[in-house]
């Protein structure tokens, strides 16, 4: 989404405009859910956490100090929700630092028709990502897939920028090893 459009939509949402908020939800949910998925083995749990993050965002707009930091604020909120759920349902979910995630098929609706032929490759790609430790997986998704800067990813994951750099390097190394 264009930065100018995002700025306006966040502003209108803070004013209490549900239509603008709906547009934010539509535009940012795919990425947010992808990030939530880094905590869980099932897309269903990721989707629930995504919904909760949006609801909490709507209720907590007054705590957003900088509209420019909306995305980081939203992702941090989602992260806290995911971590809370993992703590609550430790028996059902993997723990945050668990190294191996159960292989999870990608839901059909996430596959555009024109890449259907790549289904096998995409599933393999997800399997590689799911095989990373959670911290590396989160960092990779935030920076490489969501396009966040190291600084933004550090704010979301509550670590330093140098930690983000190190985690990303380890994630990329693991991916390269898996591919070659």
């Amino acid at each position: 989404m264009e930065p100018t459009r995002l700025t306006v939509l966040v502003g209108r949402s803070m004013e209490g405009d549900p239509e603008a908020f709906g547009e934010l939800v539509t535009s940012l949910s795919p990425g947010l859910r992808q990030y939530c998925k880094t905590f869980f083995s099932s897309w269903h749990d990721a989707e629930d956490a995504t919904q909760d993050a949006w609801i909490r965002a709507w209720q907590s707009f007054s705590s957003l100090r900088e509209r420019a930091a909306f995305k980081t604020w939203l992702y941090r909120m989602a992260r806290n929700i995911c971590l809370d759920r993992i703590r609550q349902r430790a028996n059902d979910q993997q723990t945050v630092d668990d190294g191996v995630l159960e292989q999870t098929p990608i839901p059909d609706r996430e596959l555009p028709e024109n890449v259907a032929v790549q289904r096998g490759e995409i599933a393999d790609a997800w399997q590689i990502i799911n095989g990373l430790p959670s911290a590396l997986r989160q960092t990779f998704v935030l920076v490489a897939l969501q396009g966040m800067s190291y600084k933004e990813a550090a704010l979301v994951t509550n670590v330093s920028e140098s930690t983000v750099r190190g985690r990303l390097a380890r994630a990329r190394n693991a991916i390269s090893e898996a591919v070659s």
Partner: protein
Amino acid sequence: MTTLPCGRTTEDVLLNLDEPADLHELQCRWCHAERQKLKDQNGFITQLLQASTPEHEPEAFSQSILGKIASYVPRQRVWDVQDALTGNPQRLSSLDLIKAIRKVFADSTQSQLNYTEIKATDTKIPHLQWKVQCHVSMAEDSSVSTIEQQVLGYIRDAISPLIVWDELVVDLVVEDLHGQAIESVTLREES
């Protein structure tokens, strides 16, 4: 991590993969080849993962969330005002006034309204003194002094058909495209 013949490691290259190559990497064929290999391998996986993520969520998803948030108490403050047309007492929410302001700004080619808040500052019923916080981005060929008068005029044009007022204070914040404040000024007008 592999150590390259030049003495650097794969990790050295990986840590700076998002940065431009440094002087050593530019001159070292081992590092150059390693960087290219890592970029290709990671790029391939990244591309596949991005292809599996839709650009927009299906409408049903946002509708479901909007349905859920609709049950929460509206956060809008309601104000006792005097109707500008009839002179009768009336109640308007902040959002009613904000919508009117946004409608006027929608025609602007010089400024974009990013965020606004409006509140009465007097204790009278109906309220006659208003304070508006206005965060705007401006066109590159515009200037703060031009925007100042324009914004004040927009606010006046927006609320005057709705409510009777005798003092209007506008806290104008000029922002960049990302919503970061660049400059702020307070404007005042009496009717």
